[in-house]
């Protein structure tokens, strides 16, 4: 009988038939697959094992034809950065005279992370216009060149001369919305306003607008740079509030504000009432439940009034608690504050001569006022929280020139652990930007983006999985992500750019653009 001949029940098998059957099952050249398909006499690939040339998705591979018995694992590519680039155009606003795209200016966060399960990762770009123009918000789906949605934001107050500056964004993952901030003034009417404007995630519906400052009068007013401003609007997902700080003008009183996402209702409290140069910032430690009470730690960035203030905040209230902790007296230039984890973790404040760390009860865990390792421009950049360790990047240069970035690891940070520094030279960065730590543990990588037009470089950090950071350069891997060139992460003369760390997935979005030209959006992630 033939190899595949039909055999009836009860038929006796001759020796030759038996041998043919064996060949049918076992022969690599004349055997058959057994799924009914036309075959070439080869084995069927399993779902895990692959018979030829696997590069990904398989644990083991075998030689071609299935005859080889040498099994091997595919090459490991973990740690190599990959990129996805979409050249997008049309960043220009549709009306007005374009001055710049607001991605990295004046505290704006024009490139905003946004990720939804339904539509995938997106980023937004907000353009501003001056002199009778509108602000425009647009968004793109990552990897797609075409604009996915946009909206022109008509000024709240019109006048002979008005300026619109849309800056500050947030994204609500719970009910899918954006909140933009619009600064506006009209010289004819004398009105100056500051409005938080919420849109749905497709930018199709203007859910609400909430004016947090209006009809502002100030002898110091001259142009939009002294119009009311805010630190930006931040989203808190547990209580579902937007919050931030506003100033009526650069010389005015700073206020803390909260806006209920459902009702668009504004709640405010004076953060500090002080003299010229007041500006405040802070961090919010959320409650465990939506009905709980969060804590906002406020610190002032101007000179002369040292201290932290704390506020209780819910979705419908703000209550001042008081000033609890003062700055180091030698600290004349408070820099920034960070919330290292969510509820229950610590708040860190960085000054020019102080490094304070508090737990969620506002108990000072570390008050390092004598560190000579922390220089006046120390910044935590792309900090990571891993178990009890903190890992950060400390940049020493505030100008776009060659400088030094210091990687530091702090074991037992919550308990006031001692900093461990490792210096890495020849970084060209802007203070506080463009260095990101990705991955975790011993597989932590640092992505470094040059400040000017250049290339993106990644560096693998080794030894950080242990308590002490390894100072040796051995094992570090530098590579240029494929297709990532000409990254421009800071606003130069005629172009703008922005980098946003997307966090989850260790992705960075980069946007490069000119004032009226095309731009490129790139994501970089660990392969």
């Amino acid at each position: 009988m033939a190899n595949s001949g039909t055999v009836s029940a009860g038929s006796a098998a001759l020796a030759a038939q038996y041998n043919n059957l064996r060949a049918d099952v076992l022969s690599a050249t004349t055997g058959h697959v057994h799924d009914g398909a036309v075959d070439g006499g080869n084995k069927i690939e399993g779902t895990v094992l692959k018979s030829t040339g696997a590069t990904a998705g398989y644990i083991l591979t075998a030689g071609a034809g299935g005859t080889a018995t040498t099994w091997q694992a595919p090459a490991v590519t973990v740690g190599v950065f990959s990129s996805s680039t979409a050249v997008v155009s049309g960043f220009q606003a549709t009306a007005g005279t374009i001055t710049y795209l607001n991605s990295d200016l004046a505290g704006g966060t024009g490139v905003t992370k946004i990720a939804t399960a339904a539509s995938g990762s997106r980023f937004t770009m907000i353009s501003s216009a001056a002199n009778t123009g509108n602000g425009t918000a647009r968004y793109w789906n990552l990897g797609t060149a075409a604009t996915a949605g946009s909206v022109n934001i008509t000024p709240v107050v019109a006048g002979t001369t008005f300026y619109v500056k849309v800056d500050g964004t947030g994204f609500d993952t719970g009910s899918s919305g954006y909140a933009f901030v619009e600064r506006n003034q009209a010289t004819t009417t004398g009105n100056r306003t500051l409005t938080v404007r919420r849109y749905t995630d497709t930018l199709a519906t203007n859910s609400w607008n909430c004016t947090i400052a209006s009809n502002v009068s100030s002898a110091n007013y001259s142009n939009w740079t002294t119009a009311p401003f805010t630190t930006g609007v931040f989203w808190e997902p547990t209580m579902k509030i937007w919050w931030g700080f506003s100033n009526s003008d650069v010389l005015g009183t700073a206020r803390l504000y909260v806006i209920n996402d459902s009702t668009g209702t504004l709640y405010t409290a004076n953060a500090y009432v002080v003299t010229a140069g007041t500006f405040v910032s802070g961090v919010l430690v959320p409650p465990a439940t939506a009905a709980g009470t969060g804590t906002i730690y406020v610190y002032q960035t101007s000179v002369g009034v040292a201290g932290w203030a704390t506020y209780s905040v819910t979705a419908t209230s703000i209550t001042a608690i008081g000033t609890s902790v003062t700055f180091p007296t030698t600290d004349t230039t408070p820099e920034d504050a960070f919330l290292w984890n969510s509820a229950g973790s610590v708040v860190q404040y960085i000054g020019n001569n102080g490094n304070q760390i508090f737990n969620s009860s506002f108990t000072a865990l570390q008050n390092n006022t004598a560190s000579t390792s922390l220089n006046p421009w120390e910044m935590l950049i792309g900090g990571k929280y891993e178990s009890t360790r903190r890992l950060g990047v400390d940049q020493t240069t505030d100008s776009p020139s060659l400088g030094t970035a210091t990687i530091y690891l702090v074991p037992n940070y919550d308990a006031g652990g001692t900093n461990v520094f490792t210096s890495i030279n020849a970084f060209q960065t802007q203070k506080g930007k463009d260095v990101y730590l990705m991955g975790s543990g011993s597989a932590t990588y640092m992505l470094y983006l040059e400040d000017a037009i250049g290339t993106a470089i990644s560096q693998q950090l080794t030894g950080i999985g242990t308590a002490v950071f390894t100072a040796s350069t051995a094992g570090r891997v530098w590579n240029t992500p494929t297709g990532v060139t000409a990254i421009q992460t800071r606003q130069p003369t005629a172009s703008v750019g922005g980098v946003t760390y997307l966090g989850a997935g260790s992705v960075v979005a980069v946007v490069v653009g000119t004032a009226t030209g095309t731009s490129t959006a790139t994501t970089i992630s660990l392969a």
Partner: protein
Amino acid sequence: MKLFIRSDESGNITTWGEGFEGGTEVEPADVPADWETFRTAKYVFIDGSLTVRAGWTDPEPES
């Protein structure tokens, strides 16, 4: 488009938009044609109606 408005005791508009809890809906026929241009600067919201603010003067046309 639905327009919802919330105002303070003086009629100053504090919140407006297409949909939020607690706002008062304004009938489309009652929304002034220049609402989008002037909004909170020109109008106050009293007894459920948009009214031109006392003393308001439209700005000079752009030259």
